[in-house]
């Protein structure tokens, strides 16, 4: 047992909280689901091993003296993961500033805040590395089985990447805090996190489209164009890739550099964390003045509900950024559409991407409208039938999705009316399916819990994802005028029937 108020004592406290938080997220707060969650996790890990085996089955061992192309591919993959890790770490740092669960207690205690926040930054680094390890582990294992134990060094690189991601995330957030103040930082940090997470993936896709006329990132990473422009094989830039391939000297250097970065971030920023947390707390009581409306506008209950949904969404930039961030992923297909004007092959990619994105966006918006109602009692006691309320909310969701996707659909209609029609039908079905799933699994929560909505029902989360995938596949095949489209359509219907059967029974519709 460590002495109270020491670093190790805080570390124990933090790890206990992190463990319970993770456990609660996996089991949706119900201890009875622990066995089920463990089984699901084990199945996921097994499934990931299978995916890793499929993905790597034709990969040749680059050996300890790899060529430039191999170094580019390994570095590219590492950078992809790293951008996601920075994004995750920034989320954690923002939460540390703005989530007040225990900060009042800690900051009012006679203990140096530096100690607490040092431990907290290390916990963030470990949490980030752990998540990356869970995803990268199966790929590393397949490489170890195929090419030898030296690939275990990749674990060291993953942990190092976690450390640097946390260090960078802390530095970025604190810089934002100082530059634009606590009120704007919350939103800016969330957007920066999401953009960093998406930018590298999208950037690679855009580069692949521009240079190779394909959406495949790997085609671009393997291209001669990139290899010709990349630094020489002796460059320091390849050290992380070399470390991953089993060069122990490179691994030692990478680990030392990343731990130094993390140590520096802790040393420089942990002392100021408390001040920033106090400043962040101050914004909770800030008031925002609205420009006075001219006069009350006459509205039917349906219109009042729709207007309310859109106003709330519009006034919450954080929610807008969270729900619309996936639109960023539409940029590469949009670029493809623009470049492939008149090329039929483009539709095989574009149509399913549109359908998938519409389904995902609708799922998020439907959750906000149906489960994320902040005044459920008021709406439930309004003198309108329950089914009417639900319909009005669904109309709100459909309207928002239509506004987002209409321009792309219109552009597509100019080039290929039939494919545009198929895409529109696919999107409508995907949106309705996602909304129905949210309706069947509705679980009243605060809108601010949007990011954690997936934890309330795993069944709903998987049903929503599988449904979107099934309707995207259906639309892709239908756009190619293939009768095989009936197969994924049947799967989509099956997913909906299964979701309805597994949903709680006390909801209308």
């Amino acid at each position, binding site marked *: 047992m460590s002495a109270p108020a020491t670093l190790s004592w805080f570390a124990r406290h933090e790890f206990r909280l992190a463990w319970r938080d993770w456990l609660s997220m996996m089991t949706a707060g119900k201890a009875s689901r622990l066995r089920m969650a463990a089984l699901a996790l084990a199945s996921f890990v097994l499934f990931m091993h299978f995916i890793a085996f499929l993905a790597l089955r034709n990969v040749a061992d680059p050996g300890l003296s790899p060529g430039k192309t191999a170094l580019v591919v390994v570095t590219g993959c590492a950078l992809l993961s790293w951008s996601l890790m920075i994004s995750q770490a920034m989320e954690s740092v923002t939460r540390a500033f703005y989530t007040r669960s225990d900060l009042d207690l800690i900051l009012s205690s006679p203990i140096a805040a530096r100690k607490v926040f040092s431990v907290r930054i290390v916990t963030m680094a470990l949490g980030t590395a752990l998540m990356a390890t869970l995803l990268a582990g199966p790929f590393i294992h397949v490489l170890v089985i195929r090419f030898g134990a030296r690939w275990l060094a990749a674990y060291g690189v993953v942990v190092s990447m976690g450390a640097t991601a946390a260090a960078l995330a802390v530095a970025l957030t604190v810089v934002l805090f100082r530059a634009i103040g606590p009120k704007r930082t919350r939103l800016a940090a969330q957007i920066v996190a999401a953009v960093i997470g998406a930018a590298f993936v999208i950037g690679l896709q855009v580069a692949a489209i521009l240079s190779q006329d394909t959406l495949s990132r790997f085609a671009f990473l393997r291209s001669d164009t990139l290899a010709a422009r990349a630094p020489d094989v002796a460059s320091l830039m390849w050290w992380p890739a070399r470390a991953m391939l089993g060069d122990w000297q490179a691994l030692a250097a990478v680990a030392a550099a990343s731990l130094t970065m993390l140590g520096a971030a802790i040393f420089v920023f942990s002392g100021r964390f408390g001040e920033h947390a106090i400043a962040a707390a101050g914004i*909770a*009581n*800030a*008031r*925002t*003045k*609205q*420009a*006075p*409306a001219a*006069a*009350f*506008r*006459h*509205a*039917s*209950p349906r*219109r*009042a*509900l729709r*207007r*309310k949904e859109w*106003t*709330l969404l519009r*006034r*919450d930039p954080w929610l807008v950024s969270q729900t619309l961030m996936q639109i960023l992923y539409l940029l590469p297909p949009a670029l493809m559409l623009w470049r492939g004007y008149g090329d039929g092959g483009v539709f095989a990619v574009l149509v399913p991407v549109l359908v998938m994105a519409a389904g995902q966006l609708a799922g998020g918006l439907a959750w906000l409208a149906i489960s994320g109602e*902040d*005044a*459920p*009692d*008021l*709406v*439930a*006691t*309004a*003198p*309108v*039938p329950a089914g009417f309320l639900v319909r009005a909310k669904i109309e709100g969701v459909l309207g928002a999705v239509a506004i987002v996707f209409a321009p792309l659909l219109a552009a597509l209609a100019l080039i290929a009316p039939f494919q545009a029609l198929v895409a529109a039908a696919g999107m409508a079905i995907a949106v309705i399916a996602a909304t129905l799933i949210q309706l069947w699994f509705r679980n009243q929560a605060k809108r601010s819990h949007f990011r954690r909505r997936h934890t309330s029902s795993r069944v709903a989360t998987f049903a929503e994802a599988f449904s979107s995938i099934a309707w995207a596949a259906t639309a892709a095949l239908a756009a190619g005028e293939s009768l095989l489209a009936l197969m994924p359509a049947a799967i989509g219907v099956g997913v909906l029937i299964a979701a309805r059967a597994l949903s709680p029974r006390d909801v209308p519709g």
Partner: protein
Amino acid sequence: MKDTSKPFALDISGLVKRFDRPAVDGLDLRVQSGEFYALVGPNGAGKTTTLRMVAGLLKPDAGAITIAGIDALADPVAAKQVMAWISDEPMIYDKLSPLEYLEFVAGLWRVEAAAAEARARELLDWLGLAPHAHERCEGFSKGMRQKVALAGALVHEPTVIILDEPLTGLDAGSARQVKSVLRERARAGGTVVMTTHILEVAERMADRIGIIASGRLIAEGTLEELRGQAGKSDFTLEDTFLALVAKEAVAA
């Protein structure tokens, strides 16, 4: 004297709701139009469950609820049209201003826009919220939020107002304003049914007080009548309440 020829503002008979145990167990309760009725009882007695069933937020297992002569179980929409509900935790929209919130409520209850706006401004003024009419509710204190919720309940001029612990967590000033608005409402002919654990409030404000325990109404009447039922004429409401609840516990 209350006019007994009119239908009861609220008429509950044989109301039953079971969760893992009976929460409301064959409750009968009648409140006349223009009456201010306070429902008191120990924690877990079934007060909130009863009022949530009246507001249409919970479905009873058995029994009947009539609001201003309308069968609330057969025609919930018509019943909701004449009723307002306020819970102890004011649920309003952080990103709307009080005026925008009232405009939304008016839309839900189909109140004509000009009349709703005039009423909304009058209510905000009355509740001391006029200077904050255009501020978003996200920075409001609990008292201010409760007042916005109360304005929302009154903007559509309901016949019956149902309130669950409306004074919980309010400071003295806010509590006084809320009490004055409710009293004014009852004076103007509206019916107020309220649960409270603050016995002084029930004693001072209510025309009649109902004591509920284990999901049943164990005593009802004016303070004098309740004292009579407890058998002591010099009891305060607190003494009376404790004596009646204890008597019921022994009988059970």
